[in-house]
């Protein structure tokens, strides 16, 4: 495997000629991109360009998402993206929300519960409250985007004009990454010995995954969605 083009610093260049299998070979994190764009297996021997054409998605946007999710691009450019891509980006972000709310967070909650079941009630109450408060914050954050930001973008796409701009809406956008690190530190460093290591490791894996995914999700919101919407407002 691996007929990839490589750039000056030895990083693989994602291109539209690449086969989908080659792409997944680079990082299996990319599976979530397919899932969230609702692209169905099997992919056979399709290239990126062919698959994107099948789903009427621009390969520029698809490759941008892949670069971000493979950790290969921390400064995604929006120059090559079109107005029509916005609709897919919103769909993509919505699907990520579903994944957090319906799969990842419930899995973390169960894991935290298993870890805490082995320590004193006083200690488990303290940590459980912290986690519950955090989960509430995340749900409120996701809800704000679902109810305020995404509908706003969709209305703009339909040609409606609005007074309150995207910049104002994004200023109420809170950070939900820091506390994941706090929970991680508490589980690694400060829970008593009675909490089983295997259970702790399970939650820590989920938390690391949440942290990474949220960071990329936030990057797409701030570095792709926001500038594109602002450009649309100014048209």
């Amino acid at each position, binding site marked *: 495997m691996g007929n990839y083009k490589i750039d000056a610093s030895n990083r693989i260049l994602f291109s539209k000629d690449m086969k989908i299998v080659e792409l997944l070979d680079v990082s299996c994190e990319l599976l979530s991109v397919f899932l969230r764009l609702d692209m169905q297996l099997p992919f056979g021997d399709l290239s990126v360009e062919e698959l994107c054409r099948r789903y009427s998605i621009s390969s520029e946007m698809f490759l941008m998402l892949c670069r971000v999710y493979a950790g290969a691009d921390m400064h995604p450019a929006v120059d090559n993206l079109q107005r029509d891509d916005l609709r897919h980006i919103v769909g993509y972000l919505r699907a990520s929300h579903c994944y957090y709310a319906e799969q990842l967070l419930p899995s973390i909650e169960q894991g935290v519960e298993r870890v805490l079941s082995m320590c004193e009630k006083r*200690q488990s109450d*303290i*940590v459980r409250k*912290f986690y519950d*408060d*955090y989960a509430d914050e995340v749900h409120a954050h996701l809800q704000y985007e679902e109810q305020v930001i995404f509908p706003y973008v969709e209305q703009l796409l339909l040609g409606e004009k609005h007074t309150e701009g995207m910049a104002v809406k994004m200023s109420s956008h809170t950070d939900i990454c*820091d*506390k994941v*690190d*706090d*929970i*991680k*530190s*508490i589980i*690694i*460093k*400060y*829970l008593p010995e009675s909490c089983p290591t295997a259970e702790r490791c399970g939650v820590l894996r989920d938390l690391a995954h949440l942290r990474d995914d949220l960071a990329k999700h936030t990057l797409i919101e701030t570095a792709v969605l926001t500038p594109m919407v602002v450009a649309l407002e100014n048209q």
Partner: protein
Amino acid sequence: MRRYKIAIIEPSIIIAEGLCKILQSSAEADVVGIYPTLRDFAERRVARDIEVVIVGSQAVRGGESVRGSVAELSGVTIVLLATTMVDEEVLRQVDGVINIYDNEAAMLRKLRAAIEQGETNPYSDSHDLSERERDVLILVAKGMANKEIADRLNISIHTVMSHRKNITHKTGIKSVAGLTVYALLNNLLDQNDVAL
């Protein structure tokens, strides 16, 4: 010889006065106040330069956090006077223990040892923070702003911020809520002190 300024927190007046008399008769101790409860101590205490707090085990029966109650006294040595069975969690918060049946010499010896190693509490789980950082952490967890903490501890806002940076660096915890969890898990304060 230097005389340590000592406060006694003990609900039994017989025990408190007895201890006070023994301490005053030595050349090393100066008892500056006697209080029946931790709450009383927190509210009525006048002397700011207390170096040692001797707290009777009856005064912490309800599971109050000893460290939390004396958080505003930086570098204070906490010695437990064991008059009853003592909970292990209380032991973790103190720098030394004297027993009600100790004779005068043993009591003073233990007191001296506790003062000497006050910096490194053998029972403490939170020795990754310095004494001053712990003081700042407790006030942060109580919901105070940097300015209030600076006033309370008599240091500059800049110093408070630098302590906070170190606390976050050492613990790996950034949010106030997360730091509160840290303080509670390490018995630096108790649930009732937390503004939630």
